[in-house]
């Protein structure tokens, strides 16, 4: 059932040109150089330290590494992180692997 719905959403985005982040609950990530990273559609903060931020997403997690992190703004679905961003990566759920 979940797989079927996932397929439908993929079709909607590819065929009807609907924005993927809206339809599929995917995070939209905006970066300004290494200074700022702006993440929409997150599901909460899992870990926050000066060098590492881990955010929960609908599917999997987002891992951001760098230096001198500071959460400038934090709202129910968006986060603005400031610092020196060095590394952004997705951690997928084991069952999706």
């Amino acid at each position, binding site marked *: 059932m979940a797989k079927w719905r996932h397929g439908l959403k993929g079709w909607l985005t590819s065929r009807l040109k609907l924005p993927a982040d809206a339809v599929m609950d995917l995070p939209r990530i905006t970066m300004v150089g290494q200074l700022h990273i702006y993440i929409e559609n997150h599901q909460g903060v899992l870990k*926050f330290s000066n060098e590492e931020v881990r955010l929960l997403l609908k599917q999997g997690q987002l891992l951001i590494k760098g230096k001198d*992190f*500071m959460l*400038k703004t934090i*709202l129910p679905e968006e986060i603005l992180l400031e610092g020196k961003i060095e590394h952004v990566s997705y951690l997928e759920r084991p069952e999706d692997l």
Partner: protein
Amino acid sequence: MKEYIRELFSGYVRIKVVGSYTELFINRCIEYGIPIWNIKRIDEQTIVLSLYISDIRRIRPHLKRTRCKVRIHERKGFPFMVQRIVTSRGFLAGVIGSILLILILSNMVWAISVNGASPEVEHKLRKAAYELGIKKGKFIFQLPTNQEIQQELSESLKEVTWIGVKRNGTSYHFQVVQKQLPEKEPAADPRHIVAKKKAVITKMYVEEGQAKVKENAYVKPGQLLISGFIGKEEKSQLVPARGKVYGRTWYVSSVDIPLNSSFVTHTGESKTNYSFRVYGFNIPIWGFKAPDFKHYEVNERETNFRFLKWQLPISISFKHMLETKEVERTYTNKEAVDAALTVAREDIKDKTAEDAEIKTEKILHEKVENGKVNVKIHFEVIEEIGKNIPIVQGD
């Protein structure tokens, strides 16, 4: 920008949250719509974040649930700034100091204005007022009351008929009505000078007119002394008679003096108590006790404090107590007669003009009766006896 202004105006705190589940705390805050920002990690257990003052209470349940402890790190924004300023000692001292200064200045004389006086009289008035203590920078409560000032000034200024004294806050206004000094006698109408009482003429000075009596003549009231007609009968001319006629006149005065009398005098001992009066309550500042004398007279003066244009319910009161003494006075017969003479002399002085002179005095009789001495005294006085009467021409 908008956010920044809101932060400044509503005031916010930087708080330290300590616990193992600080991330959970952040998530719960977001979930419950408590705005937090500028989150920074200090160490494994501690984060620092900003929070509106109004939300401090709202985070309490979340702290409990996530087992975090909180400590306020910094206070920022206007509310705290105002609080800091208000509670700072310097600011407080400044506020108190300026209120005191205004209070002091509100109770000083700052302006003196004189209305309705000629420059000369104004100068004299200002000088007299200065001597009474009415000068710039003087405390109003040190000054006598308006009524006293009015009395003093009226007495010391002869050229003035009436002085109105008004105090308006910190300024004194003097309204002056000046005496209209008579102009140099205008060309007077023709007149005679006649005697106003019976007398024996002692001296005559005729300036204008014709003397009708001689020295040592006895005159009756209404008798012509200096005539306004001059010249020979055919060429007679009318003039205003001018001159002075002195005559010897007689008075008899009868005076009763009690042999025993009692009256109250001041002993010279006095005591002054100063006190503040606030809403009718007396707060003594100097002189707490009632004086040690038994009988005394009390003079009280009260002056209100002012603040700018407002009258404060605070006043300063001076209570001046003068010791009095009842004195019993007993005259011997001789002393009583002397006293009677003095009284009679005053009486004659009152009845006659200022330049009158008592020539002789003679006690006609004295009688002691019912503890009183009755003395009759005969006075011989030299005084001016002339009186002007206009000549009314028949045609």
